[in-house]
């Protein structure tokens, strides 16, 4: 049932057993939480007294996720976008360039040996 790896072994059964125990402990702790909260008003988020906008308007869209990360790496992403031109000529050039590099790295050392 265990997969031997370079440094030891991996047993999904042991992992599952540990997961079930952790889940049960978490569930018990969650079950001990406060149950007498008021439904409705008390469940609403507090936005400094402002009215909560409709849920559809506050759903975070894909473009806004991880913006801090992508903004920090703007230089890298600008460069990557620049080389991903979408033009087939460039795709072919990348291929020819890499083939040339393979040639230089693999064959030339043999020639000059």
């Amino acid at each position, binding site marked *: 049932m265990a997969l031997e*790896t370079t440094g030891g072994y991996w047993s999904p059964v042991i992992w599952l057993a540990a997961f079930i125990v952790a889940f049960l402990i978490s569930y018990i702790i969650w079950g001990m939480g406060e149950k007498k909260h008021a439904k409705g008003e008390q469940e609403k988020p507090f936005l400094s007294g402002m009215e909560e906008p409709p849920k559809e308007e506050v759903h975070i869209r894909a473009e806004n996720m991880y913006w801090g990360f992508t903004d920090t790496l703007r230089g890298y*992403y600008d460069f990557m976008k620049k080389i991903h031109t979408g033009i087939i000529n460039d795709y072919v050039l990348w*291929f020819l360039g890499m083939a040339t590099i393979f040639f230089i790295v693999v064959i030339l050392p043999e020639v000059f040996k």
Partner: protein
Amino acid sequence: MNDWIVTNAPILIIATPLFAAFLTPLVDRVSKRGRDAMVFVATLITLVIAFILAKNVFDNGLVVYTLGGKSVGLTLPSGYHVPVRIILEVDGMSVFMAMISTLTSFVGLLYSFSYIKGEGSGKYYTLFLMMLVGMLGMEMTGDLFNLFVFLEILSVSSAALIAFYARKGKPLEASIKYIIISSLAALFVLFAIGLLYGEYNLLNMGALAGEISSEATFTFTTQIAFILLFASFVLKAGAAPMHMWLPDAYGEAPGAISMVLVAATQASLYALLRVCFTVYSMAIDASTIGIILISLGLVSIFIGATMALIQINMKRLIGYAAVAEIGYILLAIGVGFFELAKVGGGGVISEYGLKALQGGVFHIFNDVLDIGLLFLVAGAVIYVTKESNLNKLGGLAHSMKYSSIFFIIGMAAVSGLPPLNGFASKILIYESVYKVSPITSIIAILASIFMLAIFVKIFHSVFMGPKLSEFATCKEAPKLMLGSMAVIAVIMIFFGLFPDFVVNNIVNPAVNALMNQAGYIGSVLGGV
């Protein structure tokens, strides 16, 4: 009958979908239901043959099948001691790949029955079966020229299917790019085959390997041919920085085709492994090739993962994740090849070298399953909403409960979360790569965490949040689509829970076949 099937399985596995492909347009004119039934039965038979062949190869070792002759030796004109007829050579690696190709095609076909409807669907199934023929031909053949022919069949059918549902716009552009890139790679392969034929008068891979491994007959032209083959198959495998066609093609193809395209890309990766391990093996500077593969793997992981983060098209994003996954395979295979170089033609490969190869080969199957499942879910979302822009989607878990569960399974697997299949192969890769270069292993682990963040982005954008008014009437995907996703998900969970079973029974024979160059050469030349 049973013996006849087992004996002729190497050709039946190619002939069955080929025959059905040519029959499809005829049956289509008579009955659409009849056509669907015929295509289903043909693909199912091909799947069953793949498993029969796999059992035969795992039990009895490499199978050599000669077309038009009872044995390899009988193919020769008198006194001419080289194999000249079409010879299929099926070893553990071939059947490993055949299982992947037939399984994904079968599941993709079930999915297509719901996805592809209306005018021209008969042509779709013809092309679909031709795609399967191309993959299986590449995986079964022992002949370099036939490899080229099947590569062409695969490329042409794939290009047509990428743009199948479009008459203008991006799918056509993606298809044109795919066919240009594929033609370029095929031309390089053909040129390399010409060089090798000019040098040795041989096309059979086993016989070629026998000549190439001899220092006396290893020439500069042989090295040039290697570079041409290596560069072409690396391009077709979608390794960065030659990956740019891949998100275009995967992103625009119909859902089921995107999944089968992943298997098709792996068929090119198989050809790369065949060239490196079987045809050239120790004749070339294997440690340099190992380092090149490791570098390509690392670049693919990094570029694939980081570029996926900024995509807003759901399928393009998964396409970039597929580039990163190919990176993991190349990284592991590179470490294995590097370690194999240390022991030369003989000796025993280090334990972590062997584990790296096991991890890499195991990850080929896992990549097709994980990325394939995500493409099927993406296809279902596009089918239901007619939208693939992540900025416009949202709240679909309210109406697509099962699809969202399948997405979570795919997301967890591709990110290498335990106890799913992606983790089992990745842990083999991480630990073995760590022995060669700790920093490379750390980058690979970080990229996996990054992938989880990326797929959380898709999950949040597409499935979470309130039900949006524009998708208020959307329902769950059709049952056949869900069934297809369920089949893949069940296999993934099984692979995750019983990785030792998979590695011992399916992966190890493939790895042993890759390392046994002498056995491959001997199986052909022994009969001459």
